[in-house]
């Protein structure tokens, strides 16, 4: 890597002369055009800002479109409801790792956000009276958990995310946002710790574009693709997280990754828990119903993390099925086919299309699958990106984040169902409002320091490093030895090392893979639509996410929410909340785990350093909505 940097200085001269760099200037730039990105982009345009939306996919192809579940809001259409009860449910669901001020903000704004979407034209399903129909979903309760099941989830038939995205896109066309579609954002332009814009690669013609702006919003989505089995699109590569990491800023809580136990092997589709509810069983290579050993009472109906862990242990101990022994089977053929067809209509079609099995004769290959990333870029409740220095949160000027890429943190250690679509719209709007509050459009154009030939602004070593890759592929100027490697996408296939004990082993293996990244070679030498190059860049981004995830996970010695460990099965808080806190001694900050992980990576060596930040326990207005003190989470 050292010789790369030496050669890079030589190359950087050539970059500005031989490689076309186009400059743009905007009042605000939004990176990513999913639910959060679009909402931020047109929120800014509406406020009068000259906004650019830089996205590597066409807006309606972002992964938000795949969200079929609903969106939670305490509208109170089915029974009396209060957003403070939604607040309680979300705080509890996050296992008290969520920042209560952000959760307060989100749940209070939820009804207004949903009504706003409806006014934009989103066709929610209706009750007989014409109000939005709400159903029970996602661990929602009434009266702070004591009033029974709450009905809060609004939906649009089977396609809430699809409809949301199309509604937002259609609405955004009313405003004059400039869309830069199929531009791959490479890096943030940072100067003296302030974000001054973004640099992106135009995939169509290979030119580099610098978007200078006082306000940059990152809404690039999650990084499911670091795992072999995930429900995310191939484009969910954590580009925003990686850009922020390369800029020297931290990422928060990356070890909290939400798994679902039964995802179809190879396809990434999830099989509903209803299959196990109806009598389906999980079997290993010996044909044994292994859940009986791990959860003798609940067996296959144990909670999701227990099932996921059991499956992973079985596979690790060599009792997996298939040629690589890396998954297990979900058996349904012992159930009467008629029952399957009536209780679970469509499952035979699903199994045939995605797994190629006849569900009445063969078992379905399944393994734990990643669905959502709770962690991401740390922000406050307004959407501003923060770092934590000397015990205080400090805002990074000019940088904002929203959506799955951000960690506000409303989901904490575990996301509740139907809360993520809400998170998108609320915080997308929050970023737009914050920017509008802090700046007037066009006020004080940034004094742009001319990029000197020999030295690019700090933090944007990204473009130099990227252009090294480009130059190596385009002009073969570097005479570095480049060994052939496996195709870039295959590199980051790794399984969840949810098994501790193997966590250290996982970290070592990850280090090896990181070092082997040096040997990436792109085969496509073209400038137009060089997907080989873009995939290599995505691989580097995935790598940064993966290495932070695994180190954070290895360090966190407790089980909380989605982060579950065999060797540390309990939650470690400052008090033991299973007993009254009166008379207990509060553990010092270093000794308990109710804190956010802030991870930094040195991109050259791949070394991860971790710091910790306390959870925000107060709400925005204690009079209006008191914070919820921690308790044992049980459902």
């Amino acid at each position, binding site marked *: 890597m050292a010789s790369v940097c030496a050669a890079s200085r030589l190359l950087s001269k050539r970059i500005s002369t031989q490689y076309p760099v186009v400059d743009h200037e905007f009042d605000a730039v939004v990176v990513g055009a999913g639910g959060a990105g679009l909402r931020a982009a047109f929120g800014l345009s509406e406020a009068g800002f000259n906004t650019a939306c830089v996205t590597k996919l066409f807006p309606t192809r972002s992964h938000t479109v795949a969200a079929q579940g609903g969106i939670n809001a305490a509208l109170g259409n089915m029974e009396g409801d209060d957003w403070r009860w939604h607040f309680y449910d979300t705080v509890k669901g996050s296992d008290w790792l969520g920042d209560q001020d952000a959760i307060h903000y989100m749940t209070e704004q939820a009804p207004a956000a949903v009504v706003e979407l409806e006014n934009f034209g989103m066709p929610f399903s209706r009750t007989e009276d014409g109000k939005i129909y709400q159903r029970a*979903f996602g661990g929602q309760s009434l009266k702070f958990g004591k009033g029974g099941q709450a009905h809060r989830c609004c939906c649009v038939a089977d396609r809430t995310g699809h409809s949301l995205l199309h509604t937002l896109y259609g609405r955004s066309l009313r405003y004059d946002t400039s869309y830069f579609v199929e531009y791959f954002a490479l890096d943030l332009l940072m100067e003296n710790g302030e974000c001054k814009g973004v640099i992106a690669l135009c995939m169509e013609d290979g030119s580099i574009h610098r978007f200078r702006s006082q306000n940059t919003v990152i809404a690039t989505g999650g990084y499911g693709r670091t795992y072999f089995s995930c429900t995310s699109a191939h484009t969910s590569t954590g580009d925003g997280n990686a850009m922020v990491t390369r800029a020297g800023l931290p990422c928060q809580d990356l070890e909290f990754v939400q798994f679902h136990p039964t995802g179809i092997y190879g396809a990434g589709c999830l099989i509903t828990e209803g299959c196990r509810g109806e009598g389906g069983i999980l079997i290993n290579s010996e044909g044994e119903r292994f859940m009986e050993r791990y959860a003798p009472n609940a067996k296959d109906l144990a909670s999701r993390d227990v099932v996921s862990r059991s499956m992973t242990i079985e596979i690790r101990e060599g009792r997996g099925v298939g040629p690589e022994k890396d998954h297990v089977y979900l058996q349904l053929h012992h159930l009467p086919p008629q029952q399957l067809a009536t209780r679970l209509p469509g499952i035979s079609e699903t199994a045939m299309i995605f797994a190629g099995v006849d569900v009445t004769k063969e078992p379905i290959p399944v393994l734990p699958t990643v669905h959502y990333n709770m962690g991401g870029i740390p922000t406050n409740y307004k959407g501003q990106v923060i770092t934590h220095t000397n015990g205080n949160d400090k805002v990074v000027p000019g940088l904002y984040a929203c959506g799955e890429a951000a960690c506000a943190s409303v989901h904490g250690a575990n996301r509740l169902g139907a809360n993520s679509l809400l998170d998108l719209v609320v915080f997308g709007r929050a970023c737009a409002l914050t920017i509008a509050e802090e700046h007037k459009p066009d006020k004080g154009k940034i004094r742009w320091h001319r990029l000197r030939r020999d030295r690019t602004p700090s933090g944007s070593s990204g473009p130099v490093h990227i252009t090294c890759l480009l130059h190596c592929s385009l002009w073969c100027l570097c005479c570095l030895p480049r060994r052939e490697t496996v195709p870039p996408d295959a590199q980051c296939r790794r399984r969840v090392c949810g098994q501790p004990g193997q966590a250290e082993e996982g970290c070592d293996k990850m280090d090896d893979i990181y070092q082997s990244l040096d040997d990436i070679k792109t085969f496509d030498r073209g400038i137009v639509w060089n997907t080989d190059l873009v995939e290599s860049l995505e691989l580097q981004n995935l790598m940064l996410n993966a290495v932070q995830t695994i180190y954070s996970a290895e360090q966190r010695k407790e089980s909380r929410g989605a982060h579950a460990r065999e060797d540390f099965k309990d939650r470690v808080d400052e008090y033991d909340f299973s007993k009254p806190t009166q008379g207990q001694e509060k553990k010092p900050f270093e000794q308990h785990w109710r804190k956010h992980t802030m991870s930094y990576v040195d991109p050259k060596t791949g070394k991860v350093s971790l710091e910790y930040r306390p959870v925000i326990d107060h709400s925005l207005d204690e009079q209006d909505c008191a914070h919820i003190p921690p308790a044992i989470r049980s459902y």
Partner: protein
Amino acid sequence: EGYVNEARQTTFVIYVIYEKNVVFFVLFSAADMSLVRFRASASRLQSLVFTGCSRGVSGAVKDKEPLKKAKTPQGRFDIPEEKTNPVLEKFPDDVNPVTKEKGGPRGPEPTRYGDWERKGRCVDF
């Protein structure tokens, strides 16, 4: 023999053999990399019309006539098309008779097992 009415694309005439009043056309099909030999009687040659894509040096497709739609062998596809998706039928008027929800998800209640289920797939949990 007889009248063959087929439209073949990306097929080139390689050579023509004329002997004893019979014309053989040897055709190379780029679509499936095959050589086909057609035989036509010379007396019918006047009704033989050469049409086709002449992809000249300019690269443009110059069609003299619109491409003829391939006709399926008669009778083989006369079975009426089966309705795909009998499992998730639309409710009458799009109103769920049990919950009276209008414009909601088709089929049984998606959240009945605790997660959001559709066609056996879990989409949210």
